[in-house]
């Protein structure tokens, strides 16, 4: 027993440490049982009274992965491409677009940053060209070197990332999820984990929305009506021209028109059938009457056709100057078919969401429709007052992410910087708009590049199957060890149980997350953990067969088996490290438990079992069988 004091101390210390880290998890378990036994009201009361205690237990408990408790895992990417376009602004030209496309492809293939790829592509085309022709800022002038511009772009990208992170954190916080996790991954990705989400569609919308709020003036009804007439007749003329061109194909001055008319008639043929000779535009558009800012109405099924008809550059040129067409957020038709009004609004915004200082979801007092009340800062209020004052009797469109929510007629000058968004479909929508408005606008659009959602009921199934495998695996191995090695097997089984306590303790102590692959890692560790003891016991048997005493055999067994145990485990540990560094999510969970399992099993199989054998054989002068 001499010299074992330190080992015993180490075992007791680590056990105590594991117990200390695991204690909150046990509290959590019993708490859950207690809560489940309570009625609805009792439960709410209890949760309110013990709020801080419950929170602290939850925080310190072993974290369960989303696959075990249900939830949503989203990886988002900040659109560097769009950021570059934004930064270049009006300096952008054809060359810029070509370089950007090439850089984008290259960044994807080689896995390098888009900015580096952009700079390299740009310099590759013309080493003497200066990047500052596209980018300007306070520090970047015409004479700035390419290296300076690159640094500036990198800083901008890093700032965009930080800002996006902040905005997303704000949105998630306002949405109200317990224990969300938001982390950066690499230089342009954000990973959001939301436990217990039951409405993934809403979260998707919330996370992605750029929330660009704009107040825009609208087209002059008279001008709009005449251009509407011109566009309608453009398509009529085209059909006629086509008929003409079929009869007299030699007409030279209409050849260009004949070309476009061919396209249109093709489109017409596709959508309406060949024998229909009506106006293709009027087939999809119900034109609005005179004196309106509405261009017309389009049914849901026809929006794609309408968009392609309007995309014709000649048609675009017929619209009033600086006017574009946007859809209304709400369909107008009642009953079967839904028609979306198409509205003519100014291309440029008079005011944007930056000026909004506060937003609140509310209901209209007379109609009880949901709406959002907004307040502006002094600068915004001043502009708003000027705009409303100068445009009494006209309409102002409230545009959110290029969709018109409402376009009220200005009755009088509005001072004080108040405004409303009406025309919302539900209270949820008004809540989400408030969330997004108050969280600030994203610097560049974000894209969801990976999403994994597990429903809560499936999480429970996963939890059950994980723990069943753990228990069954443990029992089978334990039984086998006792049958095969008798007394020694029992000691090994004890070590196995301690091993599992250590693994869970390590996970809780390092605040790691237990996932289903993680449980698989523990189960696998159970199979491999006995290996160290198997190696030792086999050696002990060999030693015994040469006629040595039990004590000498145990000494020899432990001594000789050590190098094989260490070598065999170190290599698996290396694999664990590599899996952890390259894997993501659940795979990391697997790697963590694999590594924790190796450390724990080395300790319990070598140190702990030795103490028991020493105690029994030397201390109590007893005997242990090795089967």
């Amino acid at each position: 027993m001499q010299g074992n004091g330190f080992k015993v101390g180490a075992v007791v210390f680590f056990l105590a440490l594991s117990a200390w880290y695991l204690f909150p998890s046990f509290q959590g378990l019993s708490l859950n049982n207690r809560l489940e036994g309570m009625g609805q009201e009792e439960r709410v009361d209890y949760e309110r009274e013990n709020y801080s205690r419950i929170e602290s237990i939850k925080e310190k408990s072993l974290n369960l992965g989303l696959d075990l408790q249900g939830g949503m895992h989203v990886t988002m990417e900040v659109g560097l491409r769009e950021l570059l376009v934004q930064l270049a602004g009006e300096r952008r030209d054809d060359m810029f677009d070509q370089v950007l496309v090439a850089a984008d492809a290259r960044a994807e293939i080689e896995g390098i940053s888009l900015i580096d790829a952009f700079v390299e592509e740009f310099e590759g085309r013309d080493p003497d060209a200066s990047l500052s022709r596209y980018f300007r800022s306070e520090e970047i002038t015409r004479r700035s070197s390419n290296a300076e511009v690159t640094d500036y772009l990198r800083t901008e990208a890093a700032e965009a990332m930080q800002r996006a992170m902040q905005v997303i954190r704000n949105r998630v916080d306002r949405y109200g999820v317990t224990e969300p996790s938001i982390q950066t991954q690499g230089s342009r990705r954000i990973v959001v984990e939301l436990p217990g989400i039951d409405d993934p569609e809403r979260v998707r919308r919330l996370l992605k929305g750029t929330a660009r709020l704009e107040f825009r003036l609208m087209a002059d009804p008279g001008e709009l009506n005449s251009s509407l007439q011109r566009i309608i007749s453009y398509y009529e003329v085209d059909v006629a021209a086509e008929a003409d061109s079929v009869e007299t194909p030699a007409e030279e001055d209409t050849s260009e028109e004949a070309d476009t008319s061919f396209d249109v008639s093709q489109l017409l043929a596709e959508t309406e059938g060949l024998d229909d000779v009506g106006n293709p535009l009027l087939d999809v558009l119900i034109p609005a009457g005179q004196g309106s800012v509405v261009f017309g109405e389009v049914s849901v099924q026809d929006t794609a056709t309408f968009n392609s008809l309007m995309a014709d550059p000649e048609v675009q040129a017929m619209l009033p100057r600086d006017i574009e067409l946007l859809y209304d957020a709400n369909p107008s038709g009642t009953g079967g078919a839904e028609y979306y009004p198409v509205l003519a609004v100014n291309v440029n915004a008079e005011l944007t969401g930056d000026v909004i200082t506060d937003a609140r979801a509310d209901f209209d007092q007379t109609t009880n429709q949901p709406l959002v009340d907004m307040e502006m800062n002094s600068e915004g209020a001043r502009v708003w007052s000027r705009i409303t004052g100068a445009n009494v009797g006209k309409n102002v469109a409230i545009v959110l992410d290029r969709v018109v929510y409402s376009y009220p007629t200005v009755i009088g000058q509005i001072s004080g910087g108040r405004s409303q968004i009406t025309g919302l479909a539900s209270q949820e929508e008004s809540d989400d708009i408030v969330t997004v408005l108050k969280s600030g606008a994203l610097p560049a659009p974000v894209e969801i590049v990976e999403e994994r959602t597990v429903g809560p009921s499936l999480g429970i199934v996963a939890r059950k199957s994980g723990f069943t495998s753990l228990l069954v695996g443990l029992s089978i191995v334990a039984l086998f060890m006792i049958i095969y090695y008798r007394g020694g097997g029992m000691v090994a089984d004890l070590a196995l149980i301690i091993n599992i306590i250590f693994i869970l303790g390590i996970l809780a102590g390092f605040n790691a997350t237990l996932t289903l692959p993680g449980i698989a890692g523990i189960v696998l560790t159970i199979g491999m953990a006995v290996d160290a003891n198997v190696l030792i016991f086999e050696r002990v048997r060999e030693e015994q067969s040469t006629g040595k005493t039990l004590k000498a055999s145990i000494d020899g067994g432990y001594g000789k088996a050590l190098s094989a145990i260490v070598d065999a485990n170190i290599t698996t540990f290396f694999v664990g490290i590599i899996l952890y560094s390259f894997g993501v999510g659940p795979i990391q969970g697997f790697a963590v438990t694999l590594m924790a399992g190796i450390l724990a099993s080395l300790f319990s199989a070598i140190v702990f079992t030795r103490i028991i054998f020493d105690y029994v054989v030397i201390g109590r002068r007893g005997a242990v069988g090795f089967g």
Partner: protein
Amino acid sequence: MRIFENTNYNLVGSRKRGYILSGILILLSIGAILTRGLEVGIDFRGGMEFVVESDEVLEVTQVRAALTSVLETSPEVKTYSDVGAGGQDALLIRTASEGETTEIQLLIIQGISDVFPESNPRVIKTDIVGPRFAEDLKRGSFYAVLGSLLVIFLYVMLRFEWRFGLGAVAALFHDVLITLGVFSLLQGIMPFSMQIDQAIIAAFLTIVGYSLNDTVVIFDRIREYTNLFKTEPYKTVVNRSVNTTLSRTFVTSGTTLLVVATLFMFGGEVLRGFSFALIIGIIIGTYSSVFVATPVVVELYHRSGLAKKAGRR
């Protein structure tokens, strides 16, 4: 209880038979991979996977037909064994469609409701991987596999001689190749997903670690016995090493196989492909420690002229 106690099988002597068996298995595997290919999961090629739960039993072929018309591409539809409380049946639907997740999800739900009006289908699990992200996952996994093999080779080189390093790595390639071959051969035949995804890569690396574990124990004994029995022929020394460790090899493989089989049976749908890979890998890995890694060491010993230098046969 004791098995394989004091055995004296001429395992090294019968290594030729091992070569033939391994050769056939490798040829079959390569043949299967070349002709049948490997099914790559959405992790590495991008795509969407939905698990849809319903209140009535859904007919797979009918659902597939219905969804093919709404999605305009033919999705994969399989039964899914994990069903949450209250559900009757669940299907895994995998589609390469691109577009807004919410819209595709809506199309799927509508498509199923049209054919099975009473089913009340709901999505209980989604996995969506964008093409660019898939590219990154692929790259990460490639480096993980490469890195593992390199680190293992270096470690075994440092701890043992180069011959052992080569033997160990040969066995690893052998194991992974044959496991891949089994996956290629059985895909579509087994009732669970056998696609190569992140979890399968993790399983392969675990197989690598496990196979090495087995190999290293034998190597350790060879190293010990080479110094202990200096006058005996090398083959005899190696054969004795393999025989004395045989009991341990079988016990450890046995316990590990037991727990992995437990995972396969009770671990649920998510872990099924993963644990299946482990089952195959552990069987092959145990075999290869004895019949691939060790013989390579013996052959290299004779080829490299070490036999003459040490005066052994």
